[in-house]
């Protein structure tokens, strides 16, 4: 039953908030905060009971019929970290949209609905349920961007929808193909491998949908627009959780079902990852819009994720999950900070800022911390995952990995550029009197800092959780460890 709660609580909460819209903005947000908080507790409870059960998969299913039983949820080591991350960021997303006045009830209902859909993606055991949840994520996100976003919100929402829908439509053909060709449909806990002649087709059809979501470089152009135009809560969820769906899908669906095709595609994935690392960093370096800079940094970080995954070793796959969780926290923090800054200044233009550490010391301090976490400072969450990605990449691909080193340097460059231009330097006269982070915002920032430091010091919490699954996946790929 515990595995059901992270889906049901926000879903029920979304319906209640939507239909109790008359309670006003204050009531709606308090109610959603309670719902999101309870959801977060439910994810922690799920994680602890999973751990207490010795890492046994927890599953839940309902009647339906013998033929197709869709409503099956399960959790294992691969999904536990992402479920907890989603619970945390779901709560943060509600708290960051405290100031939303325009149709607040609808906004919060959509946020909770989004959280429920993402949870269902991470917890789905039936492949069709996975797809349904995957697509269901699009609907609330589309409305969050297109109604509560910034200036070009409608175009950005449209682009976001079309891009991801195009990918996932092809993924649907892949899913249908494998449903037709294998009788098993359980995602968690073993699934029959697709027959060799169909693996390549199935893999690339699935990858079409998954790689758009990651996103990899030629397919990433929806991301900066969607991020920049989305409201803060939307950006936090988009970067923090939605991008993880791509990596999770690769590990949960594409790899175990089509291991041979995955092995064959590994060099391509590694190259795509490498391009993402370098190109994302170059683009981030060239931005004048602070939010866009953070958005492009996501492309780079997801490049590390893809690189780690493509090594196909247990440690590499574990590192991929670690990068995902870490990026969820770091990008969530950065988007939250940029959003808070925008609320005060109504601009995101980097050249108009400067010396903010002096003017808003708490905001500035946390921003410097976030940038350092993003560039991968040892001791913070970004470091272990990306280090492992590069090390495992070197083991698998040898010196071909060298260009990634350039990406690491560039990563340091754009983060420090942002810090220098925004936090340090000549204080701009324009923002003499903006208020610093309030109590609610400080609490949000503090919780981010806590998790980022915690994961940086103790990355084993994720690596050991995923170990049982990553070992099986690596074995499916024919690797020893």
């Amino acid at each position, binding site marked *: 039953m515990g595995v059901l709660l992270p889906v049901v609580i926000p879903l029920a909460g979304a319906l209640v908030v939507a239909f109790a819209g008359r309670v006003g903005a204050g009531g709606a947000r308090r109610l959603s905060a309670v719902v999101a908080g309870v959801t977060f507790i439910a994810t922690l409870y799920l994680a602890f009971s999973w751990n207490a059960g010795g890492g046994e998969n927890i599953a839940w299913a*309902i*009647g*339906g*019929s013998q*033929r*197709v*039983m*869709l*409503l099956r949820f399960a959790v294992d080591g691969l999904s536990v970290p992402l479920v907890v991350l989603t619970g945390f960021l779901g709560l943060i997303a509600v708290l960051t949209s405290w100031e939303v006045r325009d149709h607040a009830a609808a906004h919060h209902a959509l946020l909770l609905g989004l959280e429920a859909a993402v949870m269902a993606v991470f917890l789905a055991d039936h492949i*069709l*349920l996975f*797809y*349904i*949840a995957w*697509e*269901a994520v*699009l*609907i609330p996100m589309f*409305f969050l961007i*297109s*109604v509560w976003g910034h200036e070009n919100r*409608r175009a950005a929402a*449209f682009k976001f*929808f*079309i891009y991801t*829908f*195009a990918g996932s*439509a*092809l993924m*649907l*053909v892949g899913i*249908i*193909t494998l*449903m*037709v060709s294998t009788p098993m449909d359980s995602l968690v806990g073993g699934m029959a491998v697709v027959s060799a002649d169909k693996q390549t*087709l199935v893999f690339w059809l699935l990858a079409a949908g998954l790689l758009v979501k990651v996103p990899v470089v030629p397919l990433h152009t929806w991301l900066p627009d969607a991020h920049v135009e989305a409201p803060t809560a939307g950006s936090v969820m988009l970067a923090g959780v939605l991008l993880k769906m791509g990596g999770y899908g690769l590990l949960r669906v594409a790899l175990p079902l089509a291991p041979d095709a995955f092995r064959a595609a590994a060099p391509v994935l590694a190259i795509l990852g490498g391009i993402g690392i370098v190109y994302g960093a170059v683009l981030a370096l060239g931005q004048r819009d602070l939010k866009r800079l953070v958005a492009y940094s996501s492309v780079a970080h997801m490049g590390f994720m893809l690189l780690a995954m493509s090594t196909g070793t247990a440690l590499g796959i574990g590192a991929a999950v670690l990068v995902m969780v870490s990026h969820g926290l770091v990008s969530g923090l950065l988007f939250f900070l940029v959003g808070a800054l925008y609320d005060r200044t109504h601009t995101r233009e980097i050249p108009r800022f400067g010396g903010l550490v002096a003017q808003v010391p708490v905001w500035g301090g946390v921003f410097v911390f976030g940038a350092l976490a993003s560039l991968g400072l040892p001791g913070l969450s970004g470091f272990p995952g990306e280090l492992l990605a590069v090390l495992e990449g070197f083991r698998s691909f040898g010196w071909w990995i060298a260009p990634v080193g350039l990406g690491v340097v560039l990563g340091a460059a754009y983060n420090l550029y942002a810090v220098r231009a925004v936090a340090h330097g000549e204080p701009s006269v324009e923002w003499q009197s903006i208020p610093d982070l309030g109590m609610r915002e400080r609490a949000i920032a503090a919780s981010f800092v806590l998790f980022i430091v915690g994961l940086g010091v103790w990355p084993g919490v994720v690596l050991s959780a995923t170990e049982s699954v990553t070992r099986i996946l690596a074995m499916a790929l024919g690797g020893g460890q």
Partner: protein
Amino acid sequence: MQAVTPTILWVPGAVVLVGIVIGLVAEASGRRSFGIATIAAGLLVAAAVSGWSALETTVSLVFGGLLLGGGGFSGLACVVYVLAGLSILSGWSRATSTQRGGTVAGLTALSAVGIQVLASSFDLLTAVLALEIVAIAGYALVSATGSRRSDEAAMRYFVQGGTATGFTVLGLAVLYGVYGYSGYTELVAAIGTGSQSAAFGMVLVLAAFAFKLGAVPFHSWAPDVFETTDASSAGFLASAPKIGALMALLVLFPGGIFNEGRFPGATLAIATIAAASVVLGNVGALRQRSLGRMLGYSGIAQVGYGLIGVAAGVGGITATAVFAVTYAVGAAAAFFVAEAVRVRRPDWDGTIAGLSGLAAEAPVLAAGMTVAVLSLTGMPLMIGFWGKLLVFSAAVSVNLTWLAVVGVIGSVISFGYYGSVIRSMYAAPQEAGEGSPGGELAGGRMAFTVALVAMIAVIIGGTGPVIAGVDVLFRLLTF
């Protein structure tokens, strides 16, 4: 367990016909509202009886082997009668206040009976007659709108329909002339392994049905018709006749006379029509400004999806039937919401851009339209997803993966125009101060209620199978 006897399969059609007679007499004697209500009530009773008899899954032949009935055939009839009833109720405010109200209701009901006969006919002669009843009722419904443009559309529809009828009759003549039978069972035995004249007949029959469905290359009537017809009637015309025609095609092609065992070219012909309809319909719809016209073009594409299921052969029969129902519900919902919008904003010009500000003004209607177009796009959690999923699965399982890929690409394109409806509704109104409509027309609540009912049907149809298993989709559709 023989809970349903073949006799009961006659009841729905008879109830509707009696309802029409009473309704028209009542209207003639000056009690129009009562007459229309009688016709609608007859349809809803017929729907209930059909739904009940669909629970008996055996398919039995009735009336001298001319008609199939029971099982999924009754299930489809149930949906058709519900749609016809909703269509009449949706147009309530207009029907009760104009001269033609009773006629429109009667024609809608008559057409529904024709569709049931068409869907379950097991004799070419019956099929052609039913096809004609549906077609003629359709011409009349279009022209009943009463504007010059609708008259023109009806005329064009009629002329093209007449040509299609010519094809049908010629095909029938060829088959009957060569083999001497019109019943499917006799024809199957007589045609044997196929012949050139039978193939010729097949092409003619296929052309006739393609016209009725509005599939490429016989599609050009569709956009005009759905643009100019009153939305309540268009909601019926766009949905129910397609159920009947797709079902008749299923009985004729994969299931019967023209199956691919005998006519290897049939699958390719249908697949080609399907792919062309999906591509042309979607691309055509992208450029439309009028909501009705856009839905007309998108209907061409949707028929293409249905034909994908027909092309998939015997394995696609249930999938196609489910698709036909899910599409019909989604399309009807879109038109019924449009009707409710028209009631609310009497000066709406019918364009997509003219929907701007609807979300702020009438959130429920905006939500209903959103749900309807998402369903037509094929998004999960909406009923339309299941139809497309099953049709694509059927195609993939007979190695027509390319057709499924064409289909999903078409779905992606379709969001370009379906999404623009959403975009427009959730945008701010173009002219400030336009926000206050001139008050609802009398009886406008009915249109609103129908729109709400349709929206709820789309959502329940979409989420139900997730919770209760996919079998609920097949409950009424066992062949």
